[in-house]
């Protein structure tokens, strides 16, 4: 078990910059999620930690050792791959035993440890099967068991749930969380799924274009986004972004409607971010702004209203029993608590 420290890490392929001079401290026992859209450099960062990719520049420390020049096998990390990377010609037992065997673990020790790991992921009955005869979820468990069978210093997980169907993903997510709390091993987890990140992480590092945009607890990332990108990336439905300006202590939409009071100095160009949950729906004329319903959706546990004024569309979450028709006019109110202002040019948050 160990901390992982990245110092000014850079990876380039020719002119293309995959990871751009990034530093990050991951504490011992911490569950850190690297979150971002595809091509943001999160997987590259993880692969450099595993030793599968050589950094162009910068240092990687695991515990108190700089591992830049160590081969993957000498870094004492365990990795779960997106496509699992199971050995198709070996049984489940041999798959799980492989890391022990190549490290020269005494024969007598292998079987009990494989059985223990298999037990932790509920695979005991399948040990004699080959990967081909397993379902996606079972393969996922074999990959997990292979990672936990030895005690690595760091777990690396590269989109481990992305090949599972939606239902199984939720189950496996809970199992992963349970397992990680139980094992208390430093874990770095790569995903593009913000729900996975929110539910699993102690801290999330949001990446874009090879740059870490923000590092923080799920709570901080969700409630205190540092940039337009983070604000738009986290949350479902995505945060509404409304263009406008700040005049006399009020946010005014591009169309000229005075929307809500904000506590920042006047500024011509700003973007107001507000989540679907942080707005209220009322009858026409009762709220801050009237808008026409563009689409009304019913999700079961709530309703989603897409409303439009001018060219601006905004999604608002409504009560479960609310019933409206497309084309009706409703009024929207914004609470003053959860409003976020951003500079549209730099993408940075404007704080009051």
């Amino acid at each position, binding site marked *: 078990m160990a901390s992982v420290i990245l110092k000014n890490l850079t990876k380039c392929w020719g002119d293309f910059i995959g990871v751009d001079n990034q530093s990050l401290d991951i504490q011992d026992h911490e569950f850190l999620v690297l979150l971002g859209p595809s091509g943001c450099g999160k997987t590259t960062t993880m692969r450099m930690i595993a030793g*599968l990719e050589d950094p162009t520049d910068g240092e990687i420390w695991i515990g108190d050792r700089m591992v830049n020049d160590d081969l993957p096998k000498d870094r004492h990390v365990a990795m779960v791959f997106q496509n699992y990377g199971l050995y198709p*010609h070996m049984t489940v037992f041999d798959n799980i035993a492989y890391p022990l065997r190549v490290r020269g673990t005494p024969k007598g020790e292998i079987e009990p440890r494989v059985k223990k790991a298999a037990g932790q992921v509920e695979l005991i009955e399948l040990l004699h099967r080959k990967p081909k005869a397993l379902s996606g979820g079972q393969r996922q468990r074999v990959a997990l068991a292979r990672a936990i069978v030895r005690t690595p210093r760091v777990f690396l997980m590269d989109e481990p749930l992305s090949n599972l169907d939606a239902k199984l993903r939720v189950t496996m997510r809970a199992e992963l969380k349970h397992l990680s709390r139980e094992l208390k091993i430093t874990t770095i987890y790569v995903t593009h799924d913000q729900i996975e990140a929110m539910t699993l992480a102690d801290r999330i590092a949001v990446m874009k274009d090879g740059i870490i945009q923000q590092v923080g607890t799920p709570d901080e990332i969700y409630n205190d986004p540092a940039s337009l990108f983070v604000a738009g990336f986290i949350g479902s439905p995505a945060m509404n972004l409304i263009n406008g300006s700040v005049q006399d202590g009020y946010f005014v939409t591009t169309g000229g409607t005075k929307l809500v009071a904000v506590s920042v100095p006047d500024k011509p160009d700003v973007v107001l971010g507000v989540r679907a949950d942080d707005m209220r729906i009322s009858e026409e004329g009762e709220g801050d702004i009237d808008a026409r319903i563009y689409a009304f959706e019913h999700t079961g546990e709530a309703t989603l209203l897409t409303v439009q004024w001018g060219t601006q569309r905004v999604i608002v979450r409504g009560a479960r029993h609310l019933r409206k028709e497309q084309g009706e006019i409703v009024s929207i109110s914004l609470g003053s608590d959860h409003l976020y202002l951003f500079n549209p040019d730099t993408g940075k948050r404007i704080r009051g």
Partner: protein
Amino acid sequence: MTGKQKKQISQAIQIVLILITIFVMLVPILWIFMAAFKNHIDVFQLKLFFTPTLENFGTVFEAPYHLGMKLWNSTIVAFVTVALAIPIATMAAYSFSRFRLRGKTAMLVVILATQFMPAVVIILPFFVMFRDVGLLDTRIGLVLVNLAIVMPFAIWMIKGFIDGIPIDTEEAAMVDGSSRIMVIRNIVLPMAAPGLLTAGIFCFIIAWNEFLFALILTNKDAVTLPIGLALFKAEEGDLWNLLSAAGIIIMLPMFILALIIRKYFVQGMTMGAVR
């Protein structure tokens, strides 16, 4: 006519055309098979029914034909060619498949292009050199030149198979604690085994059927089966019953091998160009 009737008629025409094709494709082969079991006299009549005899298969192994020696030469040459080509090609194919190499594309293109050079061009210098160093009419000499036609096929085919092995699996093994050599031995070779077998069989067939090199380089001791076909000429003309028996000995093993790898046969010949 209804749509259904039209469909049925078109189906029937298709079946007839396919049957004609099979007939044309198989008749020469069947004709040889029949001739091989005919006696000298039956061959000269277009007989469909005759009393089969195994006599021809005995005769071809006797003097003056000694087909046994040619069979032995063909077997040895094809085996040794494959035994040399496959390991060397596998090493290269793995490297080409997995690593960025300086000049990789150029190397692969050149390897592919050598495949297409006319065999007569390649054989002239070899003939001159072999004459000087005494490798004419030897099996070793034949193996060496056979490598020229077999290696490009083997490299490209095996590279195709290794490309198909998910890289995840290898990386998992490396993180699990294997060195690169161990990865190749424990993971890549077992997973590529069917592909290596296929490539091996494919190269065996090529080496076995090879004609021009053997025609030019051998005359007595190292003569292979295809060249042996030229033996069955007598003053009164070709000895078709013996030729056919020899033909069966040449083609039957190849038919069996080709059927074993039939799934990959086409892929092998076009070397990944058509997928």
